[in-house]
């Protein structure tokens, strides 16, 4: 069974600082997603990573995927308050016909002014 772990679970950081969220998964996959969730809202897709070594950037967020290490990172550069949210990674299984999306536990990010 595919297991997805994120760390840290909670992250409080000051504006302007850099930090990284880690996502580890237990079985082979080449498709990883990062989502953002604001309180009381649904999930917003941030990045889709489709291959080993994939790197995508949008504004102050950059995501990367290392399929050999089964690790993805979400790097935050010079954090600003409006990045406060919960961030989830999700990994898609590779069994054909059962490409279930398994989510991590989430990282609740709070940016302090």
């Amino acid at each position, binding site marked *: 069974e595919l297991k*997805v772990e994120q760390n840290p679970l909670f992250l409080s950081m000051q504006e302007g600082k850099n930090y990284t969220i880690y996502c580890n998964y237990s079985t082979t996959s080449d*498709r990883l*997603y990062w*989502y953002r969730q604001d309180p009381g*809202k*649904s*999930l*917003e*897709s941030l990045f*889709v990573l*489709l291959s080993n070594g994939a790197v995508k950037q949008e504004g102050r967020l950059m995501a990367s995927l290392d399929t050999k290490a089964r690790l993805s990172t979400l790097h935050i550069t010079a954090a600003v308050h409006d990045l406060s949210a919960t961030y*989830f990674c*999700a990994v*898609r299984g*590779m069994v*054909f*016909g*059962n*490409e*279930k*999306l*398994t*989510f*991590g*536990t*989430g990282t609740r990010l709070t940016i302090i002014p």
Partner: protein
Amino acid sequence: EAGVAQSPRYKIIEKRQSVAFWCNPISGHATLYWYQQILGQGPKLLIQFQNNGVVDDSQLPKDRFSAERLKGVDSTLKIQPAKLEDSAVYLCASSLDPHPDRNTEAFFGQGTRLTVV
């Protein structure tokens, strides 16, 4: 393009009552998912449909939960009877095609927040 529509947004019921949720996926999306998100946790897949067929329902508590996707478009998720531990947000999502070689990004609806008292 319209997103995934869900209703109701909120529901409060007593334990042992029944409840139903409705989802209308993005037009043309073959795959539909129902997720349960308990407060403070990541979403957990309950059931996945490909058109009107079930692909994965391994984590669906079948003694009380049921879901259907008649005609391969809209879907309903039912709980009967509800328990206190069913309090959660129920998220519906859809994707164009789950094939591994194609982009299978899932788009989520606003969710239904269920409180069982």
